[in-house]
């Protein structure tokens, strides 16, 4: 699968062929940094002054790299496809190799960052449990009622929430049984066939 670059995107990246390779390397480092931690426009001005170009050109160059990296990581394009995709930019071989290395080195991390953006439900984080025997309550004295108190920690984006729940021994067994069936299903022929074929 090849990456289709828009004319505007090509024009923005074109700036990279006007500067030295170490500068492109630095731009690449900044682009990855921005993807991880968010962008910081002040850096554009500093770099522009040093290179004696407009800060807009620097911004376009860096943002063009960011877009190139996210799109290729998103599609998980292969090494060969990446090389073929950037060929249309008409860069030197050295520059192309530099971009490829930048892509390969950061692909995994960029995919991780992107996957956090995907819509998702609260996620399981941890489960703590406690065994109690209830002996009496306001409504009823002289009880012997075993209970299992569970604290379920869920993660929703950066937020953590804990739910305190309770259950009885019989239901606990039932829950284990049911969830083990869910785990076993993943090893069934049906699931294995689909997992094997969708690649």
């Amino acid at each position, binding site marked *: 699968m090849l990456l289709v670059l828009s004319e505007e995107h090509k024009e923005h990246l074109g700036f990279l062929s006007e500067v030295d390779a170490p500068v492109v390397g630095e731009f690449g480092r900044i682009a990855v940094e921005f993807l991880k931690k968010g962008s910081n426009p002040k850096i554009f001005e500093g770099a522009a002054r040093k290179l004696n170009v407009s800060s807009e050109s620097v911004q376009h160059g860096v943002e063009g790299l960011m877009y190139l990296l996210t799109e290729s990581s998103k599609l998980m394009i292969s090494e060969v496809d990446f090389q073929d995709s950037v060929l249309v930019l008409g860069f030197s071989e050295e520059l192309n190799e530099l971009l490829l290395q930048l892509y390969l080195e950061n692909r995994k991390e960029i995919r991780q960052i992107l996957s956090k953006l995907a819509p998702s439900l609260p996620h*399981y984080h941890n489960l703590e449990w406690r065994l109690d025997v209830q002996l009496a309550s306001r409504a009823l004295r002289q009880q012997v009622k075993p209970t299992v108190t569970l604290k379920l920690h869920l993660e929703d984006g950066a937020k953590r929430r804990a739910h305190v729940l309770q259950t009885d021994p019989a239901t606990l067994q039932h*829950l284990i049984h049911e969830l083990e069936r869910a785990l076993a299903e993943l090893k069934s022929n049906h699931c294995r066939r689909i997992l094997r074929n*969708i690649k």
Partner: protein
Amino acid sequence: MELSESVMKGLQTLAEPNVFDLKSFTIFMDVAFDSLDSSRGESVLGHPELRHIDQTTLKHCHTAATTFILEGVKQNADKSTISSCLEDVRFQNERVDTFYNSFQKHKKSLESLLSSTDTCPPHITDAEWRLEYCIKNSHVHKVNQPSYLISLNTERAGASSEINFSCTMDQLQDLVGKMKDAAKSLERAAQS
């Protein structure tokens, strides 16, 4: 058992043969126990067999009888405690026996009723699950990861709700492993 003035008075009225003959007493007690036991039990008020008794008296006696029943279940009162209490409010032996027989009959279900009227965290009753294979989303393609959606059904004070969350296979294994630890400890505790 400690009983309030009003409950004592109500029980005393119940003991009086010229207000409640034995037949009315038996019917009254059946209705009183049933009203606690099932939500669709009949009411003593307007009951065809109890129409000859003053409604205000009936209401007072009903409150007294149900309070006495619940207090007895709550304290796990034995036969001698109940008998001596009822004899104090001048119940004749026959009525004490009638009461105690019904009490024994309903005790188990009233106990579970009282044990469920409890403030406690939501009680998990069941778990539902769904297995999915994520292929791609708007931000990342070729995700190709299986994931589970778990829904824990919970109940609290008669109202049910659910907790939904997703997890990977490893996380589900972690969850089940921890539940198994709890179940094992429970088993060990039951044996010792």
